[in-house]
């Protein structure tokens, strides 16, 4: 029951981030690039969920963004799934200190952007060859790092099990 409610909370957070991504960050594009709040939320949730729900959450977030966008269906789902998996593998190291956490976060977001760019190019979306891609690869992780200052603690507060809950499990 506790685990299920945490998965639902994480799903609600991802859907909320999709709404914010598709409205607020459509207009707020500093230097022509918007942050990727959905991938940040997926990473923040995957730190605290069990591995399988974490990966499935990444896929779900990606597929919803795919359905609301004009890019090929499955592109974001692929990227977010891989990023969620990598987050699960690296999440222990994110607990070492704030600096390591920030570096890993930047790396994970960059991997997500890179997958979208490379696979997008393979399926003729031509993102890597566009002049905006290099800027996105640089700025999206930095923007997400700044947003992470608020999002990571918030998701930790939402999803981390208390000692009492751990005892119940």
């Amino acid at each position, binding site marked *: 029951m506790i685990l299920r409610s945490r998965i639902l909370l994480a799903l609600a957070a991802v859907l909320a981030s999709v709404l914010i991504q*598709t409205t607020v960050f459509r207009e*707020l594009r500093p230097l*022509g*690039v918007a942050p990727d709040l959905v991938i940040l939320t997926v990473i923040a949730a995957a730190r605290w969920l069990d591995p399988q729900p974490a990966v499935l959450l990444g896929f779900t977030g990606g597929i919803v963004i795919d359905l*609301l*966008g*004009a890019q090929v269906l499955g592109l974001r789902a692929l990227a977010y*799934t891989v990023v969620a*998996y990598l987050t699960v593998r690296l999440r222990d190291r994110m607990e070492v200190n704030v600096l390591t956490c920030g570096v890993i976060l930047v790396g994970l977001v960059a991997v997500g952007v890179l997958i979208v760019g490379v696979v997008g190019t393979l399926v003729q979306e031509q993102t890597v060859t566009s002049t905006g891609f290099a800027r996105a690869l640089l700025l999206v992780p930095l923007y997400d790092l700044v947003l992470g200052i608020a999002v990571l603690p918030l998701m930790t507060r939402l999803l981390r099990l208390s000692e009492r809950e751990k005892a119940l499990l």
Partner: protein
Amino acid sequence: MRELPRGGRRTLVTTIALVIVSFVLMTFDLRASGEGVGGTLRNGAQAMFSPVQGLLGRAIAPVIDVVDGMANLAGLREENALLRAELQEMRTRVARVDELESQVALLQQAQDLELDREDITRVTANVLGGSDPLDLSFSIDRGTADGVLVGNPVIDPGGNVVGVVTDVFEGGARVLPLVAPTEAVGVTVGAQTGVVTGSGNPNRMELEILEATGPLGDGDVVVTGNTTSYPAGLTVGTVVSAASPEAAYLATQVRPLADVTRLRVVIVLGWPLPGEPGVTASTTEGGTSGTHDTTDTTVSGG
């Protein structure tokens, strides 16, 4: 990387399975060219999210204006904290009023816009939302119920080219702007004809002229040429930097006149006109959809 804490192999298998599912989805979506099951799912998702996006978009519009305003007031903030607070409150009110006024002005501008061809039908639509950092496309609140078809050109209230409708459902549609890296259009600059290609940067596009006859200057206006995609003579942008041809080849950059990141209202043009070459229409489960064929025809803009 250390071993997964629990069910490591199972998680890896799940991940690989989801990656394969993603590739399968991509393959089907590409083969179906956005139609089929993928198209139906897209229409459903967009129909589900559009109302919430619309509400949220309207709610945050004044906040975004205030954020912009606050950035401009940085100097004054440092000078006087009290004055800043007062000014912020006033700006919040003004931003709200400005928002309403600009919305009315945009709708009025859209209503008053005169095109070279008066027989082209127009549908004025509100812009709802975009999707992600690498995707400049956005949703609008008019769809098949209002006569919007796939392939219809979209312009801003000033008559500048924005892009084309790529997906349409009953209550809304999706617009892919010309600045997207996959988009291109035939254009004319003065007496020369060329192609403008999107770069993914909302503020820049690439212009290429293969048979250039003379130099281009700063601010030269780029308009649509004779294509099936757009009526001829619509303004696309202005040349950013002067350029001269080399062996009859000329390449430079163009600043789009329509700012796709700030659009609130757009106009969907009923183009090509029914019965003209270059358009076909069909009825699907979700409503009527239309597509252009790829045959290029000459269309008079005047």
